[in-house]
């Protein structure tokens, strides 16, 4: 267990050093080269190559860059970032320090969700164990709870002005971020993995993984399994592996949600042996995202589950852009009516139309993620949606027609 601990307490500095050795002293360009060679992809959801991101910030930095370790984890189904920060804060801090060296940053911000109490306490305790020059450069900023407060421009906006809503891009944070400086916004798991790669080399990282996949990472398993929670996996593990490690399925499962609320539904049957890793999944139109794997019990209606997610996503709109505010609101309302089997005549048709109209038309990617999920639902639960439009539900069996006594 490199990333998550087995015990309940945060790992202290002494244990951390004993387990992993001291922080490597390699210079900035070597660090970036190692990360690029490792093929490490970001774990915040977008999956952007980490080495390339560090390089693009380093290129624009003249010593005053900023590192923002993103531990906001607004995705409700994801627990990995808070678990990582709570259990192995020093690994995250190491990653942030290496990132600061690589991009020439003198300001390190740990952006932690307000609601992640254990994570914040662990980071605070861990920073207190570090020497003065580290403590002087690092600070913890508490992110308001919410789905989009962890979006990179929202994080920068909150640090600068106390308003955690996304801002217009370009410019993106890697060009102009906190206080106008080039800012590296990097997920805390990505930083932790970078800290391991710096110590052991890119070849070590690439030697991990099942089949054609390379690397390791954290996923959060939830839904119809015996032991939901965070798992540390080799990339390329399958749904079968993940379900087994979670103590097996509880009952029949028809669909699985992959990647988070901005990921998508997939049919469990079809994807049971699919390698869970970014490239393969993207080729299938799925997303590894932030590593969420949620098994939907067969007895749970997919239309109902999707309706609850769409209602949540609509409520989480920053309400700055019309297409997101009105489009997601209308989608959530239509989906709710369909779930309740009281749809208007053209609700399903409008859902399909709106789902094609929102992508790329918001100030951030929130509406894109939401309609991505909706479109996967309309595919995976196509029969269910059609039935609901006819005021029927395929999941809960209709009561048998009882003869009138």
């Amino acid at each position, binding site marked *: 267990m490199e990333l998550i601990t087995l015990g309940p307490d945060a790992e202290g500095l002494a244990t951390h050093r004993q387990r992993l050795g001291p922080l490597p002293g390699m210079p900035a360009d070597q660090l970036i080269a190692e990360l690029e060679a490792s093929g490490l992809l970001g774990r915040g959801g977008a999956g952007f190559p980490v080495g390339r991101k560090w390089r693009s910030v380093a290129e624009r930095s003249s010593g005053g860059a900023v590192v923002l370790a993103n531990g906001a984890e607004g995705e409700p189904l994801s627990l990995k970032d808070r678990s990582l920060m709570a259990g192995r804060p020093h690994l995250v801090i190491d990653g942030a320090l290496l990132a600061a060296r690589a991009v020439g940053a003198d300001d390190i911000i740990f952006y932690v969700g307000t609601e992640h109490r254990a994570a914040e306490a662990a980071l605070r305790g861990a920073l207190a164990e570090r020497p003065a020059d580290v403590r002087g450069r690092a600070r913890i900023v508490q992110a308001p709870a919410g789905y989009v407060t962890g979006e990179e*421009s929202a994080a920068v*906006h909150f640090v600068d002005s106390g*308003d955690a*809503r*996304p*801002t*217009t*891009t*370009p*410019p*993106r944070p890697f*060009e*102009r971020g906190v206080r106008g400086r080039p800012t590296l916004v990097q997920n805390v798991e990505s930083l932790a993995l970078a800290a391991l790669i710096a110590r052991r080399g890119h070849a070590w990282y690439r030697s991990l993984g099942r089949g054609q996949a390379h690397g390791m990472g954290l996923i959060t398993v939830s839904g119809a399994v015996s032991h939901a929670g965070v798992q540390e996996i080799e990339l390329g593990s399958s749904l079968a592996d993940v379900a087994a490690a979670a103590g097996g399925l509880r009952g029949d499962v028809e669909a699985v949600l992959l990647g988070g609320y901005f990921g998508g539904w997939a049919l469990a049957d079809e994807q049971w042996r699919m390698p869970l890793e970014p490239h393969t999944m993207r080729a299938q139109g799925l997303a590894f995202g932030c590593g969420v794997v949620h098994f939907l019990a067969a007895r749970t209606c997919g239309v109902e589950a999707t309706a609850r997610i769409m209602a949540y996503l609509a409520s989480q709109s920053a*309400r*700055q*852009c*019309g*297409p997101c505010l*009105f*489009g997601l609101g*209308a989608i959530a309302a239509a989906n709710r009516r369909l779930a309740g089997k009281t749809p208007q005549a053209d609700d399903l048709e409008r859902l399909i139309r*709106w789902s094609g*109209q929102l992508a790329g*038309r*918001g*100030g951030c990617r929130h509406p894109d993620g939401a309609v991505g999920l909706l479109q996967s639902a309309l595919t995976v639960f196509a029969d269910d949606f059609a039935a609901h439009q006819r005021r029927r539900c395929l999941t809960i069996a209709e009561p048998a027609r009882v003869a009138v006594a």
Partner: protein
Amino acid sequence: MGETLRIDRIRCDGHGLCAELLPELIGLDDWGYPIFKAVAVPAHLMEHARRAVDACPVLALRLARPASETAPTTRVTAKT
């Protein structure tokens, strides 16, 4: 040297004047917000595109050279 239409989605308030003045490239969704049919402006529509940019009450629409994607021509704004 084509120019492309760029929009600040946060500033946009769905006034819809852009779609009135450049219907060839800009349509409106169910709530009056612009949907771009294309962003590259052909030469014969440049004058209309400039007029559309000028007409936007909140200065959300602008024309930009494609190469200047990363130049910060608008201050980052959040809705106030």
